[in-house]
């Protein structure tokens, strides 16, 4: 679908973008916190198995945990440090997860230990998939799904188009923007690795129109021998959701309950692709990631390359926050999670930290009114569900009906319905409760 000459999808919303303050700031390296907490579950899947003991000294970049089975990835030390203990630490989801507590040496440098390189020219498909798993690569856009699982295309499925997601539709976040501008060579190399593995004929890089400089930079520097194009997309939320992006770029609709593979497409985030291109030739693992730190309460906003495991408290102290800081989101303001503790460490899935003062919290705390059936949410839902009906069913606790008759389980919690609701009904929270209840009931059967 095209509007104003730019591709997009139907429905969706237009939240304020709030990207101007950080989109022009180059990525800066962040210092090491006095204690780094590396959770062993930073991805969707089984926890990694620690390979270090308490008291052991590790080098930056050294593998500290190995994958437990296929649906799991490696973890690497973010700094040269001593392992203080292996114990529980709070996570953004609220669960206590087993983590490795590291205490960096005072003289810890940015030097990184390298492992066995995986060269593009010589590696086979399986070797690249194994290297991606060993590098600990997960979807850096926020979902943190292990990338190698995505790349292992099941028998009988084919991919004709590889989509590189440079949409970054979340308000406030500018990490993908900066990565596209500053790491385009890594990005193109990563695309070559991915094309090699999935066997797609072509790649499309989707960029939203509010990042025109990144679009032009990528278009002008695209190597002639890379079978790829760069497409400019209309600015709309949630264009970065993979199903929306596939619809916008290819005009194909991923079936209910299906995967992009069902329409012969595969979608990978730009930051993830760039990391693959940066790490694999050196046999390194992810031990840091680019994060936008922004929000009204932050004094020195910017895009920072932050060691994994940096606690929020240290991070906010280092960039300086307003005394009245009241609410901290990890991820963007639309789909991010609000942190219940400042001891939560930065993980691979965190793409931003947005801090608000109590003034904004006060303003966004609103009285909830009954549904007036205005239909705004129906117009907003990108996957054409009926949030209004679902919300009413949620109030009467008819969770099973929501799932069986109204496709509740397709909801990916983008928040568009809650955003437009004039009655301020927390629709997404209702849906999350219902989805959890349905999953529990199905597991019990």
């Amino acid at each position, binding site marked *: 679908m095209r509007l104003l000459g730019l591709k997009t999808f139907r429905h969706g919303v237009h939240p304020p973008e709030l990207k101007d303050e950080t989109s022009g700031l180059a990525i800066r390296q962040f210092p090491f916190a006095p204690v780094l907490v590396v959770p062993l579950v930073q991805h969707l899947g089984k926890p990694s198995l620690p390979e270090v003991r308490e008291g052991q000294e590790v080098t930056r970049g050294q593998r500290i945990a190995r994958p437990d089975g296929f649906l799991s990835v490696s973890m690497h030390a973010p700094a040269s440090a001593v392992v203080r203990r292996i114990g*529980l630490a709070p996570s*953004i989801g*609220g669960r206590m997860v087993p983590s490795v507590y590291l205490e960096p040496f005072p003289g810890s440098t940015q030097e990184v230990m390298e492992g066995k390189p995986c060269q593009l020219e010589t590696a086979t498909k399986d070797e690249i998939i194994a290297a991606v798993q060993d590098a600990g690569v997960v979807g850096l856009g926020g979902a943190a799904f292990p990338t190698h699982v995505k790349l292992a295309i099941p028998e009988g499925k084919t991919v004709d188009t590889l989509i590189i997601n440079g949409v970054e539709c979340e308000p406030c976040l500018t990490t993908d923007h900066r990565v596209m501008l500053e790491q385009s060579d890594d990005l193109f190399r990563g695309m070559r690795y991915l094309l090699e593995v999935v066997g797609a004929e072509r790649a499309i890089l989707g960029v939203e129109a509010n990042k025109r400089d990144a679009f032009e930079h990528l278009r002008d520097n695209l190597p002639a021998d890379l079978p790829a194009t760069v497409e400019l997309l209309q600015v709309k939320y949630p264009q970065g959701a993979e199903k929306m992006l596939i619809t916008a770029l290819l005009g194909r609709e991923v079936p209910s309950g299906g995967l992009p593979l069902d329409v012969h497409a595969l979608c990978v985030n730009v930051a993830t692709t760039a990391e693959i291109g940066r790490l694999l030739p050196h046999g390194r693992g992810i031990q840091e990631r680019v994060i936008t730190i922004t929000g009204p309460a932050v004094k020195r906003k910017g895009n920072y390359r932050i060691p994994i495991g940096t606690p929020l408290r240290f991070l906010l102290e280092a960039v300086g926050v307003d005394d009245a800081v009241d609410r901290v989101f990890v991820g963007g303001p639309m789909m991010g*999670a*609000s942190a*219940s*503790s400042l001891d939560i460490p930065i993980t691979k899935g965190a793409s931003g930290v947005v801090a608000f003062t109590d003034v904004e919290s006060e303003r966004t705390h609103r009285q909830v009114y009954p549904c007036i059936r205005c239909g705004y949410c129906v117009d907003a839902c990108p996957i054409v569900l009926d949030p209004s009906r679902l919300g009413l069913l949620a109030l009467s606790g008819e969770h099973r009906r929501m799932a069986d008759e109204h496709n509740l389980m397709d909801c990916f919690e983008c928040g568009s319905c809650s955003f437009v609701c004039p009655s301020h009904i927390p629709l997404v929270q209702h849906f*999350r*409760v219902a989805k959890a*209840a349905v999953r529990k009931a199905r597991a019990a059967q």
Partner: protein
Amino acid sequence: MTALTAVGTLGGLTLVLASMLVLANRKLHVAEDPRIDAVEDMLPHTNCGACGFPGCRPFAEALVLGDTQPGKCSVSSEDGRARIASYLGVDVGAFDQRVARLACAGGSNVTRDHARYDGLESCAAAALVAGGGKGCFWGCLGFADCYEACDFDAIRMNRHDLPVVDEEKCTACGDCVDACPKDLFSLQLANRRLWVACKSLEAGDGVLEDCEVACTACGRCAMDAPDLIRMENNLPVIDYSRAHDSRHPVQRCPTGAIVWLDAERGSIKGQAAKKIIRQGTRPGAPT
């Protein structure tokens, strides 16, 4: 004339259809044991599911078939169960009085919140938002999902937002067990009076920052009753297959995480447990 035609047609139709229904009733009649109705009448009609059957009628059917025993109904009185047994001429069967027990004692007067939760007023919803605002991840969130779920009025919320189970009214139906997102409820034999009212897997005095009645995994109870109690995942685990009728293991617990549940007086902490005088809400954690 028109009126007569209408009456005649409808009357005829009625007769034909009625005779078809009568025939169908004769031909397709399913003989049902009349005892099922009688037994169902003797059951409490609560359809709570505590017996393991979907409701009272399926339980009655199983009783008549001899697949289960009247003792499985925990809602009926002792007389009620005996009446069913004598009516069917079967044994009452083993009856284990169970009650729901909460493995948390962290009311708002002893726990600290790390964050202010602002959203749907339900434990299930709060648990999905970063685990709720409570400092202790394992603890009771206090939004009373269990109170809402209980059909027998056996759970009340005390003034510190902690559910209290009325053992007299509890029928062990298990609705609260399903409702609690933190899995704090379990159905226990009523004669099990020694109880660990904490689920925190953390060890050390640091846990007291978040909750003054948490188990610090000091292991004193396990030391005092080595046969009965062992430490597992930083929590005492009581082996109820051994004699557990002594209050002795409770006495040296420094926080009161292991308690003696008295039928009349409720939970009783040991002598060494720190006394909690505060009645108001404990101030939140410094951020």
